[in-house]
């Protein structure tokens, strides 16, 4: 029988509390492990692609004609140029459509219609990309044959919801005070939009476009049926099928020859590096520019 209670008793967990704290600690450790696993997988993927691919990179690899079926000789020059062309055409289509859709949602649509259009955008964003490929195949390629334009149209459908959603977000973040100031001066709506809202939101729109470009550059499924050429040389004519990096990687993998697979690794490494660099660069740039403007 102890008359004086131990003064440190309340400070050290015991019994039930110790068990609860152990569970909690275990849980916290598990979430840290999950995050660590994801980062480790990313590092491993990039490291492995670098290990396999970096030895391929050379002047002839970057500029040479596509390799024949067995993968010996040549490079990925035509595919690099072709991907650039496809993404350029796609973005020229998707940027105006995406920004206009965002403008419509932010400035003009009634809440009810806006909700419907937004639902449509979400559906478009969630479309399996292979279905976009099949759609353009049925609409364009069946009638006119494979072409860069068909491939770019498919990529544009991938890009539009990405650009529209992010543009909408940055248009909505334009401070109300700026808009009200323009209204108070009696400025016409279109001048407010063109002269005030779009310039203020332009950083966000630019970032969204760059991220959409990075996404489109790596898409295979929309291009597989629409611009999947057999030629090995440079092809720039937009009415012909143009070679491109993702489909070329797939063809090299499927050929199975070790020289072809080695080239696939080289192209894959290049693609990852470019896409990750664009992603990181765009984010850093956006964060810095927003901090500068105090948003």
């Amino acid at each position: 029988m102890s008359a004086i209670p131990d003064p440190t008793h309340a400070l050290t967990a015991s019994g039930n509390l110790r068990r609860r704290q152990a569970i909690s600690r275990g849980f916290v450790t598990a979430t840290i492990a999950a995050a660590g696993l994801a980062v480790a997988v990313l590092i491993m993927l990039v490291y492995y692609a670098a290990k396999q691919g970096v030895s391929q990179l050379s002047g002839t690899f970057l500029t040479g004609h596509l390799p024949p079926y067995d993968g010996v000789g040549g490079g990925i020059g035509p595919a690099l140029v072709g991907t650039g062309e496809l993404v350029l055409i796609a973005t020229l289509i998707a940027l105006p459509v995406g920004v206009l859709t965002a403008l419509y949602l932010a400035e003009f649509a009634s809440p009810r219609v806006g909700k419907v259009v937004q639902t449509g955008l979400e559906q478009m964003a969630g479309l399996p990309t292979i279905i976009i490929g099949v759609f353009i195949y049925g609409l364009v390629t069946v009638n006119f044959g494979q072409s860069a334009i068909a491939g770019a149209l498919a990529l544009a459908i991938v890009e539009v919801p990405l650009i529209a959603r992010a543009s909408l977000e940055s248009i909505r973040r334009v401070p109300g005070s700026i808009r009200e100031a323009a209204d108070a001066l009696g400025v016409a709506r279109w001048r407010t939009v063109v002269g005030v809202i779009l310039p203020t939101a332009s950083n966000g729109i630019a970032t969204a476009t760059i991220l959409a470009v990075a996404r489109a550059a790596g898409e295979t499924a929309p291009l597989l049926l629409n611009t999947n050429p057999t030629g090995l040389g440079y092809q720039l004519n937009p009415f012909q099928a143009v070679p491109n990096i993702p489909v070329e990687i797939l063809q090299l993998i499927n050929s199975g020859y070790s020289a072809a697979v080695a080239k696939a690794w080289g192209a894959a490494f290049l693609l990852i590096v470019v896409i990750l660099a664009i992603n990181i660069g765009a984010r850093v740039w956006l964060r810095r520019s927003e901090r500068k403007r105090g948003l």
Partner: protein
Amino acid sequence: VLNRLNATDRRANRALKLLALAGGALVFLVLIAIVYQVINGASLAFSKYGFGFIVHKTWNPPANEYGALSFIYGTLVTAVGSLILATILGVSIGLFLSLMAPRRVAMVIGPLVEMLAAIPSVVLGLIGIYLLLPFIRSDIEPALHSVLGFTQIFGAAQPVGNSPFAAILVLTIMVVPIIAALTRDLFLTVPRDLRDGAEALGCTRWEMIRGVVIPTTQSGITAACVLGFGRAIGEAIAVALVIGGVPAIHHNLFLAANSTAAVIATEAPSAISALQTSSLFYLAAILLVMGVTTNLAAQRISSRAGRIR
């Protein structure tokens, strides 16, 4: 206000509004055209097989006989499998980034996890073939088989190693960043007062999360998972490269199979008959229905969650 604007301004206003409306309308037009095009392409197969196509197992292009069941099964198995793994990992990462990690750490880890989603599917497939498949063959498969082999889900493997199990792992890598990013933003919306209140009452971190954070964000988490599911069913290239390409239904996750999106990607460029092309369109229509339903469900769930809050 309007009549004080000059005629040019009024015209420009109207033009801008019309242009913006055209942008929004185009989105809808494209969606309708997609539905029309896919159904139109499927008409030949539909008139031959009707809805029986969906439950027909055989897919044999040389014999010109087609059925979707094995692909639908493969799609569901790979999507559900990856969703289970990705939910556990993704929600954990979301919790870590929003509630546990110091701000500085979260600002580095968060974007890194999102980078996983930026890796192109064809690259993920390539890595899957040459890094993941050997690892599954040498380590994961024997371990799972020896411990859980009796469940038949983790039965004996085939020698090649391409399997739905590999597809599940590849899809998990794609879905985790989606669920992690969505749930992180969600957990950040839980009012600080509620969390502090729970901890002031003596809850441990885990009890606070289980008792306050998870219940208030439950429907949002569900919506994030449904969106992740939609991403998983639609992936074609990465799955096609590792799943095996065999139209078969097995309980064993280590035996080669195929999925709806993957078979469209592999067979459509080299279809040998009009009926095969049309059957692939029919598969695309099935995939479209699955995708649209999934997306609508996610929207429904998250908008209902918004109303409650």
